[in-house]
């Protein structure tokens, strides 16, 4: 899927690991802290082996204290370090939300620009592993509501490998959401020190009939849907948002100008999700370009249940995307 990656194929989790290791080698101020990042090797095995390479001061296992260690990450950033804080999953990050929203996001502005918070927070997000109602939710769209933080969602191995460097170079708090279903994905990744653009969305597949606008774990469903639609003669363009805050409105609008139809695909709950924001922006910037109303394919508004068939029904599916896009292109949106 990556377009210009020339390196060897690797797992998404390994790409993140290599990015962390590279950052730690290059900058002494960088360190990683979080629950079980060291001796355990990371709850999703992302950080396996890093403790042995960098030692327990820089690969720092924390107690179960999300609020305090995220806050300590903010403090350490203020104190001149470049912390990478891992929070195991988005659901657990709610425990640290006060520090993220009330401190990390506000300190620069309310101090009149005296302080920067060069902090990276990584967390796993999303469903699909049957982890049920306290482990499976997608809060990245929610975080994207907060001024003062940036939100990244790597959907490819290349992005997983390349987003960390610019995130660490950023003087602002950057949150990186890693979809749990992607950790084992293998793709070609670039070699050596790499940095990808962290300002723009990108078109992952060209098409003229409909734009499928998505990010993260759902990108792969959208790409599959694109294939299936192509087989029916519908050419879907797939836009990977990549950066959820600040949103790259221009790339979205450009795509809609080409296709005149859009489906937003998001694993977050529908109401008030990032899919609503994308729809609203298209409304504001490309209303007169639209041949039909923008549609959303998002998670059902339920706590994600455990059994596979119910979880599957709750999350966006390839079939659901295909059907929605097909109806949209065929002019059947049921809109009064």
């Amino acid at each position, binding site marked *: 899927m990556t377009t210009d990656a020339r390196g060897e194929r690797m797992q998404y989790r390994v790409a993140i690991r290599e990015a962390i290791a590279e950052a730690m080698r290059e900058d002494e101020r960088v360190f990683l802290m979080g629950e079980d990042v060291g001796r355990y090797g990371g709850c999703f095995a992302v950080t396996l082996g890093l403790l042995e390479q960098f030692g327990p001061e820089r690969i720092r296992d924390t107690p179960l204290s999300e609020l305090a260690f995220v806050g300590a990450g903010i403090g350490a950033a203020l104190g001149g370090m470049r912390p990478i804080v891992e929070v195991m999953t988005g659901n657990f990050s709610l425990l640290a939300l006060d520090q993220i929203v009330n401190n990390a996001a506000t300190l620069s502005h309310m101090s009149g620009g005296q302080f920067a918070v060069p902090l990276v927070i990584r967390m796993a997000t999303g469903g699909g592993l049957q982890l049920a109602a306290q482990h499976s939710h997608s809060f990245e769209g929610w975080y994207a509501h907060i001024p003062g933080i940036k939100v990244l969602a790597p959907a490819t191995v290349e992005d997983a490998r390349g987003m960390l460097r610019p995130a660490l170079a950023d003087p602002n708090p950057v949150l990186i959401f890693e979809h749990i279903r992607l950790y084992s994905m293998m793709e070609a990744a670039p070699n050596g020190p790499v940095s990808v653009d962290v300002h723009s969305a990108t078109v992952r597949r060209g098409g003229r009939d409909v734009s499928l606008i998505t990010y993260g774990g759902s990108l792969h469903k959208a790409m599959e849907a694109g294939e299936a639609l192509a087989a029916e003669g519908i050419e879907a363009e797939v836009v990977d948002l990549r950066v959820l805050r600040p949103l790259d409105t221009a790339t979205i609008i450009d795509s809609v100008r080409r296709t005149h139809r859009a489906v937003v695909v998001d694993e977050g709950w529908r109401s008030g999700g990032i899919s609503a924001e994308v729809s609203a922006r298209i409304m504001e910037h490309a209303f007169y370009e639209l041949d039909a109303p923008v549609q959303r394919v998002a998670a059902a508004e*339920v706590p994600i249940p455990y059994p596979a068939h119910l979880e599957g029904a709750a999350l966006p599916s390839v079939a659901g995307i295909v059907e929605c896009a097909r109806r949209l292109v065929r002019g059947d949106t049921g809109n009064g």
Partner: protein
Amino acid sequence: MSARALERDRALHLLREMLRIRRFEEKCAELYSAEQIRGFLHLYVGEEAVAVGVMQALEPDDAVVATYREHGHALSRGIPSGPLMAEMFGRAEGVSGGRGGSMHIFDARTRFYGGNAIVAGGIPLAVGLALADRMQGRARITACFFGEGAVAEGAFYESLNLAALWDLPVLFCCENNLYAMGTHVALSHSETDIALKTTAFRMPAWAVDGMDVLAVAEHARRAAAVVRGEGGPAFLEFRTYRFRAHSMYDAERYRERGEVQQWRERDPLVTFPALLRERGLLDDATLDEVEAEVQRELDEAVAFAQAGTLEPVEHLSRYVYMDERVAEGPS
């Protein structure tokens, strides 16, 4: 019944209860490998004496709040193994209707309030349940289980303070199995003597050998009496050990095999039967009988689960909101 017969009955009950848990979970591990159980599965193997011992101190009307490692608590609290296994399978006949799976066992009938997969997330709920009892003048208590890792969470401290400040009938049961996933207690806590934490709240606390079901039962009985009698909370720290991986995804890089081996020597399912034999309360035939009984129950549970049905997809949104007041069980 003679005192001796009573003692024997009680001892066999404790043994049977621990064995039910052990066999149930060994089966779960097998079924996990067979992909009939999915998601996260956290086994209690090695810690059975804690749940079984504590449950002896509870009345039917008391409440239980547990964690994602709660099969043992569920079984010893009296949740039937069929619906429990069906829950693991995600079947509609499961105790939570199949929606929760291993980490989210709920049962209104036994006042079992989860099955909470947010570490320390159940502790404030226990405080609230106890507050409700206190305000309604009921003599019930709430037993709240959590690990030593949870003791680092703010929710733990805030909750202990509330319970002590308001004299609420909570029996806090900390299962100190030395690890939170792969993090040793010495890497979680500056003060590793967990029972000492309660000094900050003027709450009575006892540390107990969690591998000794009789010690657990005895301390739980006394502490529960304090809680029920005076209405204030009490804290028990059970020193125990998990023999198996944290969950099915754990390669156990963080501990030596030797350490596990040492603790296995204190396996309550080894030491307790040995003690009973010593006291002349158990022989091979009886043990075989108990094992057979337990096996029968387990086979039935698995059959029940396997015969279970899938909740129709059309019901996905049911109970996101409760439409009418539900019966609140024995609340």
